[in-house]
């Protein structure tokens, strides 16, 4: 079991191809630094993020999950991000039932030009996760 000392939280980020993933690339081109414990998985749209993926990430050892995509109105598939937004509170409530704190799951809009914002969001979230400490799932095997 992991402890709070020397704790580097693992943050899995699901990013939509068009906005957030491009924004994350932008952070890279601009050389903005953020914690190496952030791991990105590309999806075409935030609407693709099945609750199953989030559960799976927690089960695999993620201490936090970020879903990030186009700002409302900017989704390349009309309203996939709105679908993700509608799902968020339900999923968060479900995670809380499983003992996963609300702060461990976030949905944030990042546009293709917001590299700086992306770096800020993941840095802040990593700090929050560091405060919370490692996620030690009880009965984690039932997830996902």
């Amino acid at each position, binding site marked *: 079991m992991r402890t709070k000392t020397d704790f580097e939280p693992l943050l899995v980020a699901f990013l939509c191809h068009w906005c957030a993933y491009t924004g994350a690339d932008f952070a890279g081109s601009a050389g903005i630094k953020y914690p*190496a414990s952030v791991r990105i*998985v590309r999806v*075409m749209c935030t*609407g693709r993020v099945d609750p199953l993926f989030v559960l799976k*990430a927690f089960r*695999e*050892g993620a201490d936090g999950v970020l879903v990030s995509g186009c700002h409302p*109105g900017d989704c390349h598939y*009309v309203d996939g991000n709105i679908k993700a937004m509608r799902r968020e509170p339900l999923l968060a409530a479900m995670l809380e039932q499983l003992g996963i704190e609300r702060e461990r799951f976030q949905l944030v809009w990042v546009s293709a*030009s917001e590299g700086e914002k992306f770096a800020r969001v993941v840095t802040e979230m990593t700090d929050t996760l560091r405060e919370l400490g490692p996620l030690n799932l009880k009965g984690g095997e039932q997830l996902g």
Partner: protein
Amino acid sequence: MPERIGVYVCHCGSNIAATVDVRQVVEQAAKWDSVVVARDYKYMCSAPGRELVIKDIRELNLTGVVVASCSPRMHEAMFRGVLEEAGLNGYLLEIANIREQCAWVSLPGAGATAKAVALTRAAVKKARLNQPIWEREIPVNQATLVVGGGIAGIQAALQVANAGYLVYLVEREPYIGGHMAQFDKTFITLDCATCILTPKLAGVERHPNIRLMTCSEVVQVDGYVGNFRVRVKTSPRYIHEASCTGCGACERACVLWDSIPAEFDEGLGRRGAVYVPFPQAVPLKARVDGKNCLYLTTGNCRRTCVTACQRGAIDFDQKETVSEIAVGSIIIATGFDVFDPGVEPRWGYGRYENVITGMQFERMSNASGPTLGKILLADGTEPRRVAVVHCVGSRSKKYHRHCSRVCCLSSLKFAHLVREKTGAEVFEFYTDLNIFGKQYDEFYHRVREEGVHFIRARGTEVTEIDGQLAVCAEDVELGVYREIPVDMVILNTALIPRHDAEKVSRLFGISRSSDGFFMESHMKLDPVTTFMNGIYLAGCCQSPKDIPDSVAQGAAAAAQALSVIARGKVSLSPVTARVTEELCSGCRICLRTCPFQAISFDQAAGTAEINEAVCKGCGCCSAACPAGAIDITHYGTGQLLAQIEGVCGNEDKD
């Protein structure tokens, strides 16, 4: 057959290798299940790097390839081609983004290597599940849509039309030409803007391949590169264009003649409720302004215009129309707005009558403008001292961070014109002189020699001291505070994104940069295309620029559209949804989820059915399906779950 995967880790010179221990990534990868070869190379994208992959595919019978390198947004398409060259389907490629999303964002020694290993592992895990899929080829429509008839859009339209293809040019105003049509002279040659623009305007009007749609705006865009369907709304002009000769008799007869501030003259001149925008307007047709016309607003007017028009061209029954057009490419050239200096009292705009904007100066200096080209104060006399204030709203933390790029030069142009026309003393209040173009520096020295004063100023403020207009500022070079009495102030205001840029970007599905202008695919290497295939940018809608650069970008956008036409067909992504009929319970939740109506219900089978030609592969249906009956090619649930295992670094599962 068991999977046989090759892993190739790129140093990218020192771009990756300086932060990531590439050897260690290769050593780890070599241990993973199904990895039959793992190598590193200085530049994977170079010819020898690509050869390495091709040779391995052939000799080791690889069934999948993982390249750990820069973002897939850079080289995914190219590496797919490499696989195809070796006889492997391009979608058996997976890229691990260890440059933009690892090496470049991590401090050395801070876990970057572990991250690169994790990202590469995720790619291998996904690659094992990748399936060959094929792009669909669809013929392209040869027509092109150009949105915005400024100089950039005009250039693009003419170039595509001259190549022999149909162009729809959609312009919101009743005339084309954009801002350039309003200018007097253009820097640095000081040739008359109208004289060099008119031949282009006439070229558009007379071109057999150009359908010019004025008073029009795009209201809906569907489809994809090669096959866009666009709806264009045209507001009524209340004029039969075929009958109108633009003689202006209606305007002079209008009961509101000379009483409405004319937009084209930046409010310095007045027009009637029916008017011809300017003498060289294309098309040279009158327009009834529905917001001000007495008859249209109150139903109560003598309609003197109707009596005055000898050709019976006025038609108050015209209605708004919506037309649908089909095009293969779209060029967006909607230009810029100018900053309103009235928002900040220190510029004195709206407070002192002899404080004007650069655009107003252009109209004043123009021979067919409201003062017939004379530079005049509000009282009708000529100024003896004139100040030009640079960077009004540009390069400012409060308003617009960006440099508007053309203002230094247009300010020099104003100074020259004022001196030439009035002999007045001119003071330029600048912050920095950004003078960059061909022969621009020579022009600057010429204007300096004409006796213009240059003051490097900070905190410039326009005020009145004892009834005398004055410009006050800190003179940075002399280190003193100066108050300079003047008769006229010209505020050179920022070029800013159009007020409706957000709406337009959403309509076409394109992105905007942090300054609010439309975003190009790559700032250096792809300044014309957008992230939306088949949609290109030209002119100031992408970033402020001068006329030569706008024309060059217009031509470049035309070349993009022409290359789509020349190819004759486009490839559509094979990433689409698929239904597993045995799992589908027929609940139809997916039908409501699909934003493109790509899913229908097969009554006989009782299951959902995907129209792959319409599906864009977003995957919303897959996430919503309670039975897990819908999957997405290349981004399948199994593939994504494997990737999640990979990034979380659970090696024991390998």
